[in-house]
């Protein structure tokens, strides 16, 4: 294990007697929670408990079930939509609504703020329960009480300040103030530090320690294991919807937690057959020092990204949510961001001012992560969607469509992709996720691309359809096309890629050839820790089979 031990113990402040070892009744407990969505089991038999005065971290990969668990605890998924039971103070509860959970003292603070930007801090704190005098809002009383609360928290914010003038860290704290004023006993923080600076994180953690000392319990979700180790008393690891283990922080280590998070067998689930002969071919696409900002005058989000890709190769991109994987693909395709620096070359010719149209003409294809939003016209038939990007192929005298020719081509894709529907006139909106994904794939492939970019191509589809997608990737590379694969599932990424680049906060966190693939190394790179042995050289590499 190449990871250094986490630099945490001195940061923790577990001086109170209420540690993981107190034997009192848990404040909140989950027993045998199972939550099914159509086609997916999001949680299976999850057990979890939370004691007063502890910070309990939830760790797991994207899609491990953390968010679903939170939604159950907070009443977003109402009682009855899941199996198992939730206990508060040892009594079973049946939350029907977020309000029920709030009444039981559970408050959730997510990445998306539930604050109204246009209102003042005081108005936000008392939103929906402002002190009144008769029919009118008692502004003086409201501001006075808000001032007291803020002072209690040691926040130097005037109650009249509009929320829009606050920094992200301050907004987060205002939300916590609001939650605490509602007599909250369980504070759920979902990735609270994703957008905070180091300074703000330290302030937030200090406040959490103070709340813990006062007996508030906290569920803390973060990808940043450093923080988790700095603040938590116990850690529960979720994987594939199941609670794998609960560890006391003093018995745990970062590598151990990562191992539990990823520990999964790699079988023949991923039938990658490399068709890749690296040295003989010029790169199809080469990216040098790409730096991209969300908009023209904003700070760059993607920084200094360089890579090359050859025909027959699958290049995987991994990283945590928000690391910039989707943005990179969207930018290459001309659909996102302002290029501040760097260049993209397609088969030796610069591709400097991309638009989706130009990208398709130049042989790029993109299958987006959110197929319903970005990929499909749900109200229209399968055939309409399949040929949508390729209509110029079917025009006669560049005006009218050759409908029979289009129909025949659609039929070829419809059959070769084995879309399960009566015929190509069926509405796409009525298909299952896997079949919708096949239609999106078909639409992209019909344009005759040389570089196929797949963003989470197997998300939310069943195992059978996944295998078909993998086979399709093999077919594409066998035809000499290049594939860029973005996936949050490390086993999939490792199983299907010839080379993997992990992104971390918009930068390349590490590049690995197949011989170096290991979940620990990849995850470490995704978290911005440079693992030893990561391949960093950019030069031509040997075949890694």
């Amino acid at each position, binding site marked *: 294990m190449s990871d250094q031990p986490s630099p945490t113990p001195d940061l923790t402040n577990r001086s109170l007697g209420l540690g993981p070892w107190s034997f009192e009744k848990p404040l909140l407990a989950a027993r045998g929670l199972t939550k099914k969505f159509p086609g997916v089991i999001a949680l299976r038999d999850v057990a979890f408990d939370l004691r007063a005065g502890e910070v309990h971290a939830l760790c797991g990969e994207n899609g491990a079930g953390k968010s679903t668990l939170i939604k159950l605890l907070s009443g977003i998924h109402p009682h009855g939509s899941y199996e198992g039971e939730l206990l508060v103070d040892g009594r079973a509860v049946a939350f029907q609504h977020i309000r029920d959970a709030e009444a039981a003292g559970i408050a959730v603070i997510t990445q998306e703020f539930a604050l109204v930007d246009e209102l003042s801090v005081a108005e936000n704190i008392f939103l929906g329960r402002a002190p009144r005098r008769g029919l009118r809002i008692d502004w003086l009383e409201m501001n006075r009480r808000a001032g007291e609360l803020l002072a209690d928290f040691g926040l130097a914010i005037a109650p009249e300040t509009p929320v829009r003038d606050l920094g992200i860290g301050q907004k987060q704290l205002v939300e916590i103030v609001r939650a605490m004023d509602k007599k909250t006993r369980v504070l759920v923080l979902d990735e609270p530090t994703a957008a905070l600076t180091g300074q703000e994180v330290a302030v937030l953690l200090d406040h959490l320690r103070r709340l813990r000392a006062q007996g508030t319990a906290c569920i803390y979700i973060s990808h940043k294991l450093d923080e988790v180790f700095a603040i938590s008393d116990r850690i529960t690891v979720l994987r594939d919807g199941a609670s794998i283990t609960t560890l006391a922080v003093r018995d745990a280590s970062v590598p151990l937690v990562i191992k539990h998070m990823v520990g999964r067998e790699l079988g023949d689930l991923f039938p990658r057959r490399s068709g890749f002969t690296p040295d003989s071919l010029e790169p199809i696409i080469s990216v040098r020092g790409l730096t991209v900002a969300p908009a023209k005058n904003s700070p760059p989000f993607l920084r200094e990204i360089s890579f090359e890709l050859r025909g027959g190769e699958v290049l995987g991109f991994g990283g945590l949510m928000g690391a910039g994987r989707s943005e990179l693909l969207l930018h290459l*395709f001309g*659909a996102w961001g302002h290029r501040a620096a760097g260049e993209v070359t397609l088969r030796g010719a610069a591709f400097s001012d991309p638009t*989706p*149209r130009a*990208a*398709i*003409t130049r042989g790029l294809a*993109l299958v*987006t992560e959110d197929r319903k*939003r*970005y*990929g*499909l*016209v*749900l*109200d*229209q*038939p399968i*055939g*309409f969607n399949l040929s*949508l*990007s390729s*209509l*110029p192929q079917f*025009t006669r005298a560049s*005006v*009218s*469509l*050759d*409908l*029979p*020719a289009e*129909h*025949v081509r659609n039929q070829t894709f419809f059959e070769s992709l084995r879309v399960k529907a009566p015929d190509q*006139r069926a*509405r796409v909106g009525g298909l299952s996720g896997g079949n919708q994904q096949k239609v999106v794939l078909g*639409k992209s492939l019909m*344009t005759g691309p040389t570089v196929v970019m797949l963003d989470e191509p197997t998300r939310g589809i069943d195992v059978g359809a996944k295998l078909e997608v993998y086979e399709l990737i093999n077919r594409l590379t066998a035809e000499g096309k290049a594939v860029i694969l973005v996936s949050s599932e490390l086993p999939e990424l490792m199983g299907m890629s010839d080379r993997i680049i992990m992104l971390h906060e918009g930068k390349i966190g590490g590049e690995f050839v197949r011989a170096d693939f290991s979940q620990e190394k990849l995850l470490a790179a995704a978290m911005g820790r440079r693992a030893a042995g990561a391949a960093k050289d950019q030069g031509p590499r040997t075949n890694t089979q």
Partner: protein
Amino acid sequence: MTSRPAPQLLALPLALLAIAVFFAVKEPAFLGPRNLTQLIVEFSIVGTLALGMFMILLTGQIDLSIGSGVGLIGGVAAVLVFQQGWSAPAAMGTAFIVALILWTAMGTLIVRQRIPSFIITLGGLLIFKGLFWLVIQNSTIPVSRGDQENLYSRLTTYYLPSSFGFALVAIVLVALGILTWRSRAARSAHQLANPPAVRAVGQWLVMAAATLGLVYFFNHFRGVPLSLVVLAATAGAVYFLTQHTPFGRYLYAIGGNEEAAVLSGIAVNQVLVGAYVLMGVTVALTGFMTTAYSGASTTTVGDLMELDAIAACVIGGTALKGGRGTVWGVIFGALIITALLNGMTLLAVSPEIKFIARGAVLTLAVWMDVKLGRR
């Protein structure tokens, strides 16, 4: 392709039948040849405008300025003819170009500046109204000089001579037959199954009987109105555009899912501007016809026609949120709206009640769109 048979498929003819029976019972002259001919001219005017609106609605946009635009474009041509002494074709050609410029400008503003079409065209409604009144100096401008007829004034008063009407329909029918036959041949060449030949021939025969019967009926009175030919040509063009060209597919795609359309490589901005330019074309055609029908350009020409056009589309099953609708539906919708307006005029319903009825129909149509749209 595209649109599923909407539930309106049977509802529309039934509604039309109910309206016809209602008015015919109240006033038998409703179905007389004189009134029917008038109704057809009014239908041609509303229908042509609605076909332009149809393409805008398909993309999920809207155009509220067209009523004022109809008045303005008709007024420009009338002023050129009556006050400047231009020939009717030159005047109409110039006004046509004005319409193209105005609608290109509006479309460009909408896509480049990302101002909602609702606001831009609401501004257009007022601006065009003001321009219109400036152009005609708040007066009544006839569409011809002296008592001389010209192309402009005859747009809605010219009827095809009976033999000419038959000849035109015959040509259209032959052309349709050839097109059907060629499309069948093309399908066979691609080894695609064709519907049985009997059915194709049967459809063609029904079409032939219907159109020839219509011509026969019109010839009994004065002949096929020229304005109906304008509508038929517009409908044919819009049908071709929406069902047989990439442009039409893109209209549906943008209205169905604009983000997906962008990522599918569709030049969304160009398509939207194109839809507005075509709207301008139908506004010009409607402007000429409706001004000619009034006999002169006056301040009220075109008033509220944007709402009739929207109502026609929505009654015909075009979704206000975009992505759904058919040319046939729009034609039926226009027929229903016109029959209502015409029937009320015939019964001498007071203008107050007519406004209320018009509003109620529009509201009802949109309500049904919302109900059906949610599915």
